[in-house]
């Protein structure tokens, strides 16, 4: 359901960009066809910022601590993007004698294509791909009851992954909008897939940067979201 919902939203949005009215079509028929100007790549500037969504979750949902910084090089048609983050989380349920914890770092590296190449404010609607990589440690402690020859036995079990590594791919869609002078807001929606990790002692509950792994046995993909507060450093001004 959530996939259908997202696809409809995405199509509706992109269709809105592509729509032209009948009047516009008539006008186009009367006008002289002008050779389409090719947009050249040029180093225009860079965005630097942090994930506000992660910062809010850190403040509101303890003991979760998650931060992420992002930067991109604006090449007009394309943006080369690098994200780096840290994720720590723990969960404890005394009624089930269950506790789990995770601590790790991650980065993403990728490229975005910018649909709004000629926007005067350099606002951007982007589609891109990322490679994500994480290194982390996690631990799971729980009590397990099982019946053996009419006797119920309870065992306290502990599983730990040390120096665990994972990597994955992402398809991204996002926007970056100028708010005031150098201040920008932006978001990225991420379809994360092809998660691979070394086997370890237990199946990781979460992977830093990737998120929960609960769907890995079915769709092997998950959704992610980041809301960025950014600062834009222009390297050159646009020609009028």
């Amino acid at each position, binding site marked *: 359901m*959530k996939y259908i*919902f*997202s696809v409809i*939203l995405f199509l509706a*949005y992109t269709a809105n960009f592509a729509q032209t009215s009948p009047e516009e079509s008539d006008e186009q028929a009367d006008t002289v066809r002008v050779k389409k100007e090719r947009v050249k790549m040029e180093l225009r500037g860079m965005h630097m910022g942090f994930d506000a969504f992660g910062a809010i979750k850190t403040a509101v949902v303890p003991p979760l601590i998650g931060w992420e910084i992002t930067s991109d090089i604006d090449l007009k048609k394309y943006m080369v993007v690098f994200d780096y983050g840290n994720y720590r989380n723990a*969960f404890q*349920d005394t009624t*089930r004698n*269950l506790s*789990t914890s995770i601590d790790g770092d991650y980065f993403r590296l990728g490229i975005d294509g910018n649909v709004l190449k000629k926007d005067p*404010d350099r*606002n951007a609607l982007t589609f891109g791909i990322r490679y994500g990589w994480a290194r982390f440690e996690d631990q*799971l402690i*729980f009590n*397990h009851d*099982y*019946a*053996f*020859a009419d006797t119920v*036995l309870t*065992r306290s*079990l502990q*599983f730990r992954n040390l120096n665990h590594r994972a990597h994955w791919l992402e398809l991204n869609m996002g*926007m970056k*909008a*100028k*708010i*005031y002078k150098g201040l920008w*807001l*932006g*978001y990225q*929606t991420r379809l994360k897939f092809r998660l691979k990790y070394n086997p370890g*002692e*237990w*199946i990781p*509950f979460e992977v830093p940067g990737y998120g*929960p792994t*609960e*769907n890995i*046995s079915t769709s092997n993909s998950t*959704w992610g*979201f980041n*809301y960025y507060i950014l600062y834009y450093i222009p390297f050159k001004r646009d020609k009028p």
Partner: protein
Amino acid sequence: MCVYLHPMNKSWIIIVSIFACLTISCLEDPACEEDKGDVVLFSFFKKADSSSLTLSVDSIYIQGFMRNAYKNASMSSGQIVLPPELTSLKLIIKADTLEGSLDLNYQPYPKLYSTKCNIQLLFINHNITSHSFDSIATHFEKEPYSFEIYF
């Protein structure tokens, strides 16, 4: 201080905010999965014609776990519960005039789907080595895991 925003910028803020809210609403909680069990099934067969064999079992003792899985039972099949605190078991089977042993190795592999779910304890990497029986056929590719002992 009043910050002037160009109408174009205002519409961008609205679009960015709406997409943010809609995307967050798409992040659903997962459904819990059933525990798939922690047993390995076994059955006895005659080597000559591969027919099922019923044995009067004196005991199936699990060395290392120091418990009998079965005692004084007439049976052609059964199941062995895999203790999650171990990674190998030695089964000593005494039946009629027969006595044999086999080593069963495995790896407990927990999966926590969600903090709202119970832990699913999987068992992977099963293998068996035997020094006593005529032959053993294993079916460890998919659940239910099982093996056949040929006499």
